[in-house]
């Protein structure tokens, strides 16, 4: 046992480079499994920790009589309920006017449902009715702290309130107004919590939401009771835009913790298989001798399996050792970056165990086939000293007819087919490398293409301005007179709930002029016109409600009034799932739609000029709020460096993946052909030409793998995008030819790099010694 272990270690040390390549691939696979898997769990636990501590409502019901909804929930067994007013209200924070969100809270003490955590200052007090709580993202965006003031629009004009505390809310861990605006202008949204009585007084809005903690009650039962009691919409955690955004992100980790390890461990397994099979073939005479001397089959199998296990286990242990602290780091960076108050970092012994088990498994599986091959060695056959040449197949004959090709190319073409094991492994290297690169990069390029479509074709306004009812024409005139403004168009907007066949979906209804120049309606790749009757909806609505064009849906406005309307068509829009109609249609569906101006600037405006315009517009009378529609683009632009860095890392990882496998097949190829190469060298062939003979064969296999890899990569990219497709994002795969070309080039370059050690090995080859030995 001890001797066999020592021999195994010595054998592995002799093939250090290849063993390292296999080991590194296992290590990376296990590392990603542990790090991404652990981060996924830690983040899930962290989010849920905050949710539970702050009593994030299991259900949020919207309706005109929330007390009746709360009662219905309680009588169905729900543990805790609360009613409140939530209203979109113009506000001014640090001089910026925007449409903020006012939310009612009990001033006397923390509520049990949808509580907030005060990170600075104090909670509300009945003695300080004008003291409010500001959600922390807005506080950060506008640089406000306890003691600072802000203005809230009321029926009697602007009312100044004081920030009593800065808070974290489970509903706004990721600050999003709605599922239509998950990514938006941070300067256009703020959440302010105030005493329920004050919210009602300022906005004139009676309570309109019931919040429910289920306790032990069944979600389906309570939801049914809420709907029966008149709820126009019932939202769960996953309907909450903040939770939905975080979940998408978590899914990314989850996918990564499975897909990446799968690819890396597959590559490692195949590389180990190739490596050990070659070894078994070359050690056959020894194995035969040992078996002739009575060695047991089990021992022979064990000897080779042991080598696979040594590589797999060592690499996996290292992988988990590096992965564990990396998990902690990722979790902390994330929770800090997102401002999640609870950072739960726990050890995941099961992930460690599974990670190591994966490494062990990959090592064992990679070694199993060669080990069995070794044990099947018939002693006599192995010891017979006659090298048996395999007979040429039909393919060899076919290649013979290609007289024009150089002999080295003909040789490569035949070798590729004669040694399918090696060819398959080499191809797999380039295929996996391409899949990794294309799936990850496809995600990014598709995202960028989606933004291009969103802001180039669909949503062409630079800003949208909310104005007081009745002041639309007057403000429109003033705005179009400003320097830098090209076009102004009137529009309407309103939060509504769309219903069909028992399901509901909360979204924004936009009233847009039929001859608009601000919005492109795209359906099936064509631009369509806004119908004069009926509404258009984002294609995501079909998944949400199971509707199709031509169906009749219900639209419920904020006052609870419900109207039937025909769904005239579905449009393809990358961001959000909205409803569109002409202003006249919107007037029939919604009681008091918000007047909005869509503004387009002169092209080529600097950021400073845009910010200047924001100031000028919000300074006008009757302007209530301002949203820079393209703020997201600015944010994305600022991350472009990061994009390229990520691109680089992924390409490097893909390169490592391809290289690890190709390196092994290349060196095995080298070993198998030592005699041929030495013979060529003896005839005076240069090192470079001899290395070229090897490279040609590898290149043929790699080039053969490219189309498969490109197709598989595109499919993988499509699949990955599918995982992230929701009503919030509809990404279409966009992979420019340059991405495909660069990825393919990357694989070829990786293959080229694997030439370097091969050429060095050929240079160091002891020609004299090789030609003294007989061919095996």
């Amino acid at each position, binding site marked *: 046992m001890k001797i066999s272990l020592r021999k195994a270690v010595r054998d592995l040390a002799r093939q250090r480079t290849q063993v390292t390549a296999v080991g590194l691939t296992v290590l990376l696979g296990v590392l990603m499994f542990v790090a991404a898997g652990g981060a996924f769990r830690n983040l899930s636990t962290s989010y849920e920790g905050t949710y539970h501590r702050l009593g994030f409502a299991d259900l949020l019901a919207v309706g005109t009589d929330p007390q009746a909804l709360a009662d219905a929930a309680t009588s169905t067994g729900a543990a805790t309920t609360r009613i409140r007013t939530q209203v979109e209200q113009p506000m001014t924070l640090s001089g910026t006017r925007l449409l903020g969100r006012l939310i009612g809270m009990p001033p006397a003490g923390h509520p049990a449902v949808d509580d907030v955590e005060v990170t600075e200052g104090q909670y509300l007090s009945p003695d300080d009715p004008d003291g409010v709580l500001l959600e922390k993202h807005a506080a950060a965006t506008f640089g406000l702290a306890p003691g600072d003031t802000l203005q809230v629009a009321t029926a009697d004009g602007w009312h100044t309130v004081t920030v009593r505390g800065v808070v974290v809310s489970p509903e706004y861990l990721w600050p999003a107004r709605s599922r239509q605006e998950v990514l938006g202008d941070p300067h256009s949204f703020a959440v302010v919590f105030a005493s329920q009585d004050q919210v009602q007084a300022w906005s004139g809005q009676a309570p309109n939401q019931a919040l429910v903690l289920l306790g032990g009650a069944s979600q389906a039962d309570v939801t049914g009771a809420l709907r029966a009691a008149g709820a126009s919409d019932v939202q769960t955690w996953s309907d909450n835009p903040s939770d939905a955004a975080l979940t998408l992100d978590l899914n990314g980790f989850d996918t990564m913790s499975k897909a990446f390890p799968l690819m890396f461990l597959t590559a490692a397994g195949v590389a180990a298989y190739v490596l050990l099979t070659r070894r078994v073939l070359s050690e056959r005479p020894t194995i035969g001798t040992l078996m002739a001397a009575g060695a047991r089959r089990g021992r022979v199998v064990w000897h080779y399996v042991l080598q696979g296990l040594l590589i797999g286990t060592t690499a996996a242990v290292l992988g988990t050792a590096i992965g564990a602290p990396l998990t902690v780091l990722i979790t902390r960076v994330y929770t800090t970056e997102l401002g999640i108050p609870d950072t739960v970092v726990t050890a995941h012994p099961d992930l460690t165990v599974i990670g190591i088990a994966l490494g062990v498994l990959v090592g064992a599986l990679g070694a199993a086939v060669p080990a069995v091959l070794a044990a099947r060695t018939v002693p006599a056959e192995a010891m017979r000293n006659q*090298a048996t*040449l*395999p*007979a*040429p197949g039909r393919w*060899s004959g076919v290649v*013979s007819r290609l007289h024009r090709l*150089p*002999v*080295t190319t*003909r*040789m490569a073409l*035949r*070798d590729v087919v*004669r040694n399918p094991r090696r060819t398959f492994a080499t191809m797999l290297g380039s295929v996996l490398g391409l899949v990794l690169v294309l799936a990850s990069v496809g995600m990014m390029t598709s995202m960028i293409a989606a933004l291009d479509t969103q802001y180039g074709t669909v949503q062409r306004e630079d800003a949208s301005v909310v104005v007081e009812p009745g002041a639309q024409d007057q403000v429109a005139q003033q705005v179009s007179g400003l320097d830098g403004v090209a076009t102004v168009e009137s529009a309407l907007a309103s939060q509504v709930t769309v219903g069909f066949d028992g399901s509901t979906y909360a979204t924004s209804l936009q009233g847009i002029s039929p001859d608009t120049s601000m919005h492109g309606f795209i359906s099936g790749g064509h631009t369509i016109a806004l119908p004069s009757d009926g509404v258009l909806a984002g294609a995501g609505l079909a998944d949400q409600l199971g509707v199709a064009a031509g169906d009749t849906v219900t639209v419920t406005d904020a006052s609870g009034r419900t109207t039937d309307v025909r769904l005239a068509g579905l449009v393809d829009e990358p961001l959000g799932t909205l409803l569109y109609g002409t202003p006249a249609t919107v007037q029939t569906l919604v009681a008091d739609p918000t007047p909005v101006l869509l503004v387009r600037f002169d092209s080529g405006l600097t950021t400073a000029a845009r910010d200047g315009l924001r100031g000028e517009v919000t300074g006008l009378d009757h302007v209530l709020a301002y949203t820079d529609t393209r703020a997201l683009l600015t944010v994305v632009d600022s991350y472009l460096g990061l994009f390229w860095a990520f691109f680089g890392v992924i390409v490097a990882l893909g390169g490592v993946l391809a290289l690890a496998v190709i390196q092994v097949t290349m060196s095995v190829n080298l070993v198998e052909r030592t*005699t*041929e190469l*030495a*013979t*060529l*060298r*003896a*005839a*005076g*062939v*240069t*090192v470079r*030409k*001899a290395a070229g*003979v090897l490279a040609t064969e590898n290149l043929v296999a790699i080039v053969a793998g490219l189309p498969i890899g490109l197709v598989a990569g595109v499919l993988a990219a499509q699949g990955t995008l599918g995982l992230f497709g929701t009503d919030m994002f509809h990404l279409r795969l966009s992979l420019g030819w340059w991405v495909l070309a660069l990825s393919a080039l990357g694989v070829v370059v990786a293959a080229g790099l694997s030439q370097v050690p091969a050429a060095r090995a050929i*240079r160091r080859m002891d*020609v*004299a010694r090789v*030609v*003294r030995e*007989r*061919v095996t």
Partner: protein
Amino acid sequence: MGTTVNGRHGSTTGKETAGGGAGRRPGEHAAPRGGARLTGVRKTYGAGDTEVHALDGVDLELAPGSFTVVLGPSGSGKTTLLNVIGGIEQATAGSIEVAGQEISGRSPVDLAGFRRDHVGFVFQFFNLVPTLTARENVEIIVELTGVGDARRVPDLLAEVGLADRADHFPAQLSGGQQQRVAIARALATDPDLLLADEPTGALDLTTGRQILGALLELHRAGRTVVVVTHNASVAQIADTVVTVVDGKVQSVERNAEPAAAEAVSW
């Protein structure tokens, strides 16, 4: 050791005996090429306790156009001698002049060039590329060295009697046929010297005779041929017989009347 003969004593034998042997008509001989002169050549492997003197002061002259057989017991240094003459191994000391060129102390790149232009090797185990046909096994040398002429390859195969097997793969050829392909391959660059290490070692008698016959043919074209073998009987066909023992040249004998390949037996 007593009968050690300085190589120089036999130095002129090559030319003198060239026209000699039975069945060889003087008129057939082309201008002699190649030749080699070794002076004080040593080859030492390893160092310290494991030091092996594979060649221990060899002085030897092989005339251009001579046919030399090197005999000696196993481990005596025959292969090493052949390798240093052919420039696939560097001597530790001494001077080696082959085909009029001093090759000791040259860089590996230089030596590759030297081999390309002057030497052809034939090995005991043929070392053919299994995925290439007979013709391709020869062509690839022309292709990769840039020396020789691919159009001459069919002639080379004809010279070794394989005109009708040109498109066969090694697996479809007998051992003797494979060795003849190896000889044609060694001739692809039209070398001045043909160095064969146990070319008949893996073959039966009849096939072995064919190979030796083919080598004699090549010698007749003026090339210097050196054949290393265990088999004393092969010595009959040579004009020069070198015996190596313990890394030293024990004797160099001239053979006034070289026999035909058919005379050999084992």
